[in-house]
């Protein structure tokens, strides 16, 4: 009962917060609602015994990426932003697309079959600590995808520096 109640709280509040993020007129308020949203995501990770992910969620997303968002948004001329038209003319197309993706997800959800459970049960993770378990899996079984992901990030960093250093 209690776990269901917890999950229900997180699910409902996260949807409400996501709506708050996209409906605020002031972008700084949007970012701050997103901060609260990230905390709820971290809470959901903790609820799944994924303490390492929860901590990284806060350190990276809330502590670094979102601060950069704020940094950029604060440089905007907000007065212009606040009086601008909020929706572009093509919004009905957007709504139609959104509804169709939602329908697709809704119908495919019922067809999902979960894979066989791996060696990491909750007891195994508790005995080994989550950080160790995720490290082992990441650096042995999923080493190749992990390296590809880091390469993609490296390319993004190099690209950003190239764009920033280009003068004129």
């Amino acid at each position: 009962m209690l776990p269901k109640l917890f999950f229900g709280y997180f699910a409902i509040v996260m949807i409400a917060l996501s709506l708050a993020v996209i409906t605020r007129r002031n972008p700084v308020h949007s970012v701050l609602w997103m901060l609260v949203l990230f905390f709820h995501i971290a809470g959901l990770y903790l609820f799944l015994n994924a303490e390492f992910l929860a901590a990284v969620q806060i350190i990276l997303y809330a502590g670094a990426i979102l601060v950069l968002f704020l940094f950029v948004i604060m440089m905007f001329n907000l007065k212009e932003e606040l009086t601008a038209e909020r929706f572009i003319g093509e919004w009905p197309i957007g709504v139609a697309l959104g509804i169709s993706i939602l329908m697709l997800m809704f119908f495919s959800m019922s067809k999902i079959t979960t894979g066989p459970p791996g060696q990491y049960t909750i007891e195994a993770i508790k005995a080994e600590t989550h950080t160790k378990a995720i490290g082992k899996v990441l650096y042995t079984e999923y080493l190749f995808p992990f390296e590809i992901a880091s390469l993609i990030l490296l390319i993004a960093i190099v690209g950003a520096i190239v764009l920033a250093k280009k003068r004129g």
Partner: protein
Amino acid sequence: MIDSALTGSYGYLFNIAIILVKIAVVVGVAMLHVTYATYFERKVIGHMQIRLGPMRVGPHGILQPIADMLKLFFKEDIVPAEADKPVFKIAPVIPIFATLSSLAAIPFFEGFVIADINIGLLYLFAMSSLAAYGVVMAGWASNSKYSFLGGLRSSAQVISYEVAMGLSLVGVMILSGSLNLSDIVKAQQQYWHGMFLIPQFLAYFVFMVAAFAETNRTPFDLPEAESELVAGYFVEYSGIRFAWYYAAEYLGMIIMSSIAVLCFWGGWTIPPVIADAVPALKVVPGIVWFLGKVYFHIFLYYWVRATVPRYRYDQLMALGWKVLIPLALANIVVTSIIKFMS
């Protein structure tokens, strides 16, 4: 009677009551430390500059922090007319919330910690990175150019130095094989000197410099550079809201000092070689050693403040990205190789 309470259905309530008492003790003692850290700072800097510091309230000004606190509590609270009011009011709560919650994961002596979590060190990072929001939000919501510049400077500074700080502690994590702060302290007892300070001297240097920048202290106090920005991000704050920022800054210093003590100075333990030579020292409770080491680090903050002039902003960024991060990375590589070889 107590046994049945522990094992019975009241066991939960009993545990919660114990945790609440622990929290009350830790928060009370920490806040007292914050008030007297201000007095200590004024006295230390005063004597370094051949002045006396506060002398009027009580003998040697010992009651000065109490007087300051009362004054702050009863001052008028002003919210600027053009400020973004909800953000302006939430902003000062965030740093004090983040720093007070950090106290939960710090083991003060053997077995005394409010929440003994496996990811203690990561939790402390997460909380210290949150404190930046208080500064950025205050800078933006005050609707003042001085505050805004202070907020921008601080967010850039904190993000840059957080990287160096996180990387500097990776060496400690590698050597101890754990993120749990109690385990990190115990792992240091394997050496005769009982501290990671000696194998990780480079990491300690990087960590301390980054800690000064994270807490916005001299020589990295650009977010509140008086001569340029009046007072920086909290220009528009007064009364109790200003006091929250002030308390959070000192609490931040205490927490950074505690992390340094736990990760590099052996926490509440003393070097085994000394403990073996003078067995009488084993009777001294661990909290004495822990607090002594923390006080030394807080003194270090004041010492540096009285000695070193403020950095220029480009120098600050160059130091963070071009010196500290490469040093921390080199330390990780060397530490991993040594750990792998042995």
